[in-house]
C-alpha cells in the first residue's frame, strides 16, 4: 500500500503537543510590510503518533544493509558496526566547534593524526590529508596534487591523462576539471590494461595515469609494475583510484605498487555511512614529494608535543572543504580500525576476496563470466545468456528485489555487455551467500520458463516496475496534490 502524504493524513484541529505562547513575546507584525504577511499557513495537522507511524512505515519500505543483503558492486556496502555511531556521538566529539582553539581540541586532533598515520601505513604512503568530503572530491584533490607537482617544476607541456576504458566515470571527469584532456586505454583479453597501447600513448605530454587496482572488472592488474614504470619513464605520475581498496588492505600496499597518490573512500573500506552525497570523508595519501602540495591546514605536531592545525603551507593547493573536513566520519573510521586491529585488517581483504570467488564459482555455470579468472573482492557477470530469452540484466536486478536482496550494480563497467557486478563484502556469512546464489540460479531458470513474469518484476513491493523511461523523458517533479489540482514542473 502506498503511504499517504502527511498533508493527506491531516485533519483540521488535530495536534501533537500544545505549547503555551512564551511569555514576553513581542508582536512584530506591525513592523513588517503588508506584502510579507499571510493569514493562513497550510501545514499538515497531525497527532504525534500519526507522525511516528508515518515515518516508521516509510522506513520499513526502504532497503538497507541492516535489513538485507546489499551486493552492490564497486560500492563495498559492508556492515558498519554500531559502535562507530556511539563514538561519533560522544559529547567531546559531537559538540566541538570548529573555531575552538587548538589547545582545547587536542583529542580531536589526535583522532585525525592517528587516522592519517594508520591510513598512510596501511596504504604505504608518507603524506596524508583527511580534508576531501568524499571520493570524487578526493580524486580531484589527488589530481590537483599531480598538477601542482608538474607546475612547480615548470613542466607545462603535459596536458593528457591516460585512463583505462574500464575506469569509473569520475576519473575522466576529474581530469577534465583539472583542465586536462583524456586518452582512453583499452582493456586486453585478460581484463588488464593493454600495456602495449599504454606504451604507445605515454610520452612527454602525459600528465599521468588514473588507475583502479583491482580494476572495475574486479581483477588485479597483474602488470602493475610495468604499467607504473611506463608512466614514470615518460615523466608522468600514477594516480590510484582507491574505490577497490577493500580487496587488498592488509595484503598489498598500493604505495609499493608504483602509485604516487591514492584516494580512499572511508565509506567503502572503513565502514562509515554511505550518505546521499555526503557528508563523507575521502582521505588522500601520497608519496613524500607531493606532501608540500596537500590541502591546508594539515594536522602537525609542535616540538612540545602539542598538536595544531598548520596553515603555513605556501605550496598548498589550498582549501578543498570548509574547516577540517567531516570530523564525525573520521571518528567512525578510526573506531573501525581500532576495532579490527592489525590481524583484523588483514582478515578483511582475505574474506572479501574469498566471498566474491565463492559466489563467482557458484554462478559460473549459469551466468556468463566474461573474464573468468580468480577475482578480487567483486566480479562481473553478464546477463547475455539470459537475454536470449528476452530477459535483460535490468529485469534480473528487479527480480532480486522480490527476494529482499538489493540489486547489484548493473551495466557497469561499460565494456561488459549486460554487466552484473557483484560485491558481497567480508561482512556476509556463507548462509547469506548461498541464499543469494540459490536465488540467482532460480532467476536464471525463471528467465527460461517465465520471462514475462521477470520482465514485470518486482511483484512483492509497494510499487511494481517503475517506468524509468517515461520518468526520464517526461519527468514530473512534484507529487500531484490530493485535492486533485495537478501541479507539475517539468525539467
Amino acid at each position, binding site marked *: 500500500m502506498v503511504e499517504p502524504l502527511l498533508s493527506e493524513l491531516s485533519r483540521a484541529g488535530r495536534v501533537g503537543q500544545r505549547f503555551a505562547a512564551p511569555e514576553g513575546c513581542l508582536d512584530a507584525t506591525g513592523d513588517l510590510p503588508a506584502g510579507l504577511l499571510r493569514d493562513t499557513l497550510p501545514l499538515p495537522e497531525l497527532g504525534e503518533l500519526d507522525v511516528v507511524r508515518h515515518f516508521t512505515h516509510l522506513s520499513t519500505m526502504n532497503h538497507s544493509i541492516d535489513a538485507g543483503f546489499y551486493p552492490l558492486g564497486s560500492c563495498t556496502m559492508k556492515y558498519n558496526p554500531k559502535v562507530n555511531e556511539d563514538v561519533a556521538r560522544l559529547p567531546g566529539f559531537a559538540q566541538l566547534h570548529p573555531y575552538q582553539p587548538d589547545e582545547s581540541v587536542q583529542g580531536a586532533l589526535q583522532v585525525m593524526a592517528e587516522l592519517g598515520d594508520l591510513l598512510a601505513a596501511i596504504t604505504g604512503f608518507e603524506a596524508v590529508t583527511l580534508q576531501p568530503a568524499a571520493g570524487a572530491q578526493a580524486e580531484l584533490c589527488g589530481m590537483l596534487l599531480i598538477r601542482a607537482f608538474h607546475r612547480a617544476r615548470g613542466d607545462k607541456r603535459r596536458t593528457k591523462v591516460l585512463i583505462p576504458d574500464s575506469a569509473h566515470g569520475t576519473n575522466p571527469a576529474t581530469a577534465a576539471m583539472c583542465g586536462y584532456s583524456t586518452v582512453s586505454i583499452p582493456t586486453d583479453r585478460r581484463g588488464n590494461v593493454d600495456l602495449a597501447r599504454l606504451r604507445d600513448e605515454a610520452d612527454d605530454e602525459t600528465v599521468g595515469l588514473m588507475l583502479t587496482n583491482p580494476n572495475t572488472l574486479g581483477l588485479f592488474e597483474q602488470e602493475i609494475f610495468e604499467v607504473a614504470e611506463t608512466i614514470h619513464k615518460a615523466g608522468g605520475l600514477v594516480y590510484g583510484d582507491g574505490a577497490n581498496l577493500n580487496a587488498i588492505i592488509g595484503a598489498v600496499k598500493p604505495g609499493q605498487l608504483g602509485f604516487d597518490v591514492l584516494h580512499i573512500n572511508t565509506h567503502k573500506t572503513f565502514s562509515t555511512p554511505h550518505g546521499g552525497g555526503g557528508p563523507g570523508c575521502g582521505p588522500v595519501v601520497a608519496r613524500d614529494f607531493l606532501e608540500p602540495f596537500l590541502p591546508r591546514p594539515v594536522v602537525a605536531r609542535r616540538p612540545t608535543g602539542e598538536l595544531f592545525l598548520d596553515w603555513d603551507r605556501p605550496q598548498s593547493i589550498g582549501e578543498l572543504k570548509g574547516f577540517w573536513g567531516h570530523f564525525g566520519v573520521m571518528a567512525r573510521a578510526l573506531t573501525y580500525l581500532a576495532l579490527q586491529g592489525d590481524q583484523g585488517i588483514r582478515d578483511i581483504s582475505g574474506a572479501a576476496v574469498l566471498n566474491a570467488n565463492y559466489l563467482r564459482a557458484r554462478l559460473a555455470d549459469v551466468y556468463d563470466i566474461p573474464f573468468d579468472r580468480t577475482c578480487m573482492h567483486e566480479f562481473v557477470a553478464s546477463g547475455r545468456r539470459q537475454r536470449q530469452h528476452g530477459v*535483460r540484466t*535490468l529485469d534480473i536486478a528487479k527480480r532480486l528485489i522480490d527476494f529482499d536482496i538489493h540489486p547489484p550494480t548493473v*551495466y557497469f563497467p*561499460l565494456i561488459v555487455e549486460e554487466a552484473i557486478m557483484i560485491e558481497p563484502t567480508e561482512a556476509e556469512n556463507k548462509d547469506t551467500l548461498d541464499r543469494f546464489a540459490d536465488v540467482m540460479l532460480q532467476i536464471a531458470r525463471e528467465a527460461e520458463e517465465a520471462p514475462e513474469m521477470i520482465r514485470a518484476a518486482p511483484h512483492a513491493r509497494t510499487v511494481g516496475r517503475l517506468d*524509468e*523511461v517515461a520518468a*526520464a*523523458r517526461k519527468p514530473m517533479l512534484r507529487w500531484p496534490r490530493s485535492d486533485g489540482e495537478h501541479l507539475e514542473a517539468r525539467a
Partner: protein
Amino acid sequence: MDPTDRRYTKEHEWVKIEQELALIGITDFAQDQLGDVVYVELPNVGDRVEMMKPFGVIESVKTASDLYAPVSGEVIEVNRSLVDEPQVVNDAPYERGWLIKVKPDDAAQVEELMTAEQYAENVGES
C-alpha cells in the same frame, strides 16, 4: 543487414551522402545496446564537427555515450523532433531517427569508413 547505401564507424554511427550533404545517425545495433533513449544533445546549426571527434551525447536509461562525427564539416540541420521524441532513435534509427546533417569538407572522407558488410563483421567480433 544494415542498409548498404551508407557507411559506418566503429563507434556505431552511420553516414549517408545525399546531394552533397552528409546525413548522420546511430546504427540499429547501437540503439539496441543503449536501450530506451531518453535524451539527445546535439550541436547547433553552424557548428563545426570533426571526423571521429564527439559532436553530441546520447543518453538512455542505462548509460550516456558520446556521439562521434563520421566526417568533418559544418552542421546544416539538426533533427529537432528528437528533443520531444527521443524514442524515434530507437524506432527508426536509419530513417526518422537521424541526428544531424553536415556539409562535409571532403565527402570522399566517408570512403575511409566501413561498409555495411564490414560493420556487420565488426559488430559480430565485439
